[in-house]
């Protein structure tokens, strides 16, 4: 199979980290609640007269903490393309889809996708010697397979309090000290960096949702590229439908969307690797 195809599917299948994750800051869309002038009138502003030197250490020098971004030209272009893709394709389709399928059903579909990615989480938890998390992941898989109708529900979390432990190869590589490398904006997927992109391709190989090496790995669900794309598209739309409007809020919030997405992604990944 040609490598470009593999790559594109890898992107589609791992959409999870794009808008959805950076969107955490923004959670969802809505009309604004209040008028600022009124808000300001009611409040006194706390001011700190002390000096801020000790805080400067925490946040670091803005030039030193800046993300390594030698491809900013391409990255800005791709951010723009993704923006158009989201606005004109993903968002309208997901909005329609959300009208047809109730949220509970969409959450179940989402649970199922998470459930099926169990091999990726297990492998990466083990590679980082997170033994307890690996055991919990395995327990989750068993419990949710049997009592969660094959992963449609998540009784392991709701009834037993076993949380999912998301780990991916990018985090594992980071755990072993591999630097993140230059920031890269991937098509559809959005923010990434060299290390995480390599990780993405690796994870995709062991993902049951992607047909690579289907002859050798018995748990692969799709058997050909057509099925890969179908599955990836369903996941993308389903995922987007659970985060509708969040991206618009980010856009509204950011003074500079490109650098906002870049820094939020980088901070978030660094934090995840630390944990």
């Amino acid at each position, binding site marked *: 199979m040609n490598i470009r195809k593999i790559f594109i599917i890898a992107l589609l299948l791992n959409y999870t980290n794009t808008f959805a994750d950076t969107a*955490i800051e923004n959670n969802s869309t809505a009309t604004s609640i209040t008028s600022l*002038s009124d*808000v300001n009138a*009611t409040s006194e*502003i*706390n001011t700190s007269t002390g000096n801020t030197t000790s*805080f400067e250490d925490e946040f670091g020098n803005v030039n030193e903490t800046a993300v390594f971004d030698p491809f900013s030209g391409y990255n800005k272009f791709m951010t723009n393309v993704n923006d158009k893709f989201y606005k004109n394709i993903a968002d309208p389709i997901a909005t329609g889809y959300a009208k047809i399928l109730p949220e509970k059903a969409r959450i179940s579909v989402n649970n199922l996708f998470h459930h099926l990615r169990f091999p990726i989480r297990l492998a990466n938890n083990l590679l980082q010697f997170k033994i307890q998390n690996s055991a919990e992941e395995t327990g989750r898989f068993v419990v949710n397979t049997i009592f969660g109708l094959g992963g449609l529900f998540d009784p392991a979390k709701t009834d037993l309090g076993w949380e999912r432990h998301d780990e991916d190869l990018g985090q594992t590589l980071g755990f072993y000290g591999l630097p993140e490398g230059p920031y890269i904006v991937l098509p559809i997927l959005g923010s990434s960096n060299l290390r995480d992109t390599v990780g993405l391709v690796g994870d995709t190989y062991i993902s049951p949702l992607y047909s690579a090496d289907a002859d050798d790995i018995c748990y692969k669900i799709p058997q050909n590229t057509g099925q890969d794309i179908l599955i990836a598209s369903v996941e993308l739309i389903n995922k987007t439908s*659970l985060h509708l409007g969040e991206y618009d809020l980010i856009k509204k919030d950011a*003074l500079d969307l490109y*650098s906002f997405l870049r820094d939020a992604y980088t901070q978030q990944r660094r934090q995840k690797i630390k944990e």
Partner: protein
Amino acid sequence: MIKINKLLKILLLLAIFSIPSFALRQNEIEPVMQSKINKVLTVLKKKESNTIRGQEIIRTLDPVFDYGLMAKLALSSKTWGSITPAQQKEFSRLFIARLKQSYLDKLDLYNNQKVIYKGVKPYLKGRLQLQTEVIGKDETYKINYNFHNSNNSGNWLIYDVELAGVSIIQTYRQQFAGLLKEKSFNEILTQLRENQPLKTKQS
């Protein structure tokens, strides 16, 4: 004698707690924040207009935020020191308004998610972090509130909020630093003014 001592202690305690301005003590951070967040969630469920709910929410949260410090940090002390007092004042006003608005925008999508309190942990340089988790539809989001001992007065105030590992102040710092490479400070002020999500005198 003992009685007088006791009386004095009580009086002293009363004096401390009756200081009119709000002061958040270290051991009160978690319970006070819990009640404030609960209050915010209750207000959200009310059937009032957005303006009224927004005012109430902001009034609840204002006392625990060190907005002045946040504005300064968002810009970085270096830039802050290089602008005029008038610009500082204008920037603080615009930035704080923006911060509040963006907080309120996000609340609107609150949908009965559960908030879990993970306790107050020591953070960098004697500062403290209140760790919480919000159980969302898809993921569990960590929200951490970072407190500092304001002017070492024993009044703890929030100077940063981390959402899923992303510091609000840090993202603003990077954005402002990036913008300052291309624009003058006055141009940034203009942008902040224009980006104001709501015009004044609406209602």
